[in-house]
């Protein structure tokens, strides 16, 4: 069965304390892996698409990387405004399969 698993479920960081979020997947016929940010009570907001192992994408304090089995979202020197739930999704066929997310809290 296709699965997308994210860890940890929740993460609390001090402002400036870098860390990584993990997304592991077991999906056949993967067409891409995606990271979204979701603020409370809002819809997911697109961050990155990764297509092949070894690929990296960066945006401000975020960097996403991809291997054959997992993806990491690295957060460098986070700020309180980075607090959100980060969702990983994989595209198989024309369907997106989302993980349960990592809830990130950055404490000033």
């Amino acid at each position: 069965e296709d699965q997308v698993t994210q860890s940890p479920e929740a993460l609390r960081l001090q402002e400036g304390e870098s860390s990584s979020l993990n997304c592991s997947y077991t999906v056949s016929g993967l067409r891409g892996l995606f990271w979204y940010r979701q603020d409370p009570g809002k819809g997911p907001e697109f961050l990155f698409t990764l297509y092949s192992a070894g690929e990296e994408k960066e945006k401000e304090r975020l960097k996403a990387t991809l291997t054959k089995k997992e993806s990491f979202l690295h957060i460098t020197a986070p700020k309180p405004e980075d607090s959100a739930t980060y969702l990983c999704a994989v595209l198989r066929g024309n369907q997106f399969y989302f993980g349960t997310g990592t809830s990130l809290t950055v404490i000033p």
Partner: protein
Amino acid sequence: EPEVTQTPSHQVTQMGQEVILRCVPISNHLYFYWYRQILGQKVEFLVSFYNNEISEKSEIFDDQFSVERPDGSNFTLKIRSTKLEDSAMYFCASSDRLDSSGELFFGEGSRLTVL
């Protein structure tokens, strides 16, 4: 900046009642989706819609659900006879292309509470 808009933001209904959730996708987008998120759980695919017909649906999208694009701008999700377990946040999303770019634009969601 163009955005996907959804109404209502919150609807409370009695079990067995019909509910229609409305979405206005981004105007030049061609692909439309409904997802739902039960509180504390993952975002789940319900249905995708292209060229005035359903292109794909999940096992969640059973006979009590239907979608429609009644005019050039609205995209609706109807739940015919709501159940308690239909309580969730329902997200509409749209995209201008069906490839692996992954950039779905999501609305703010409609929270459905079934009593």
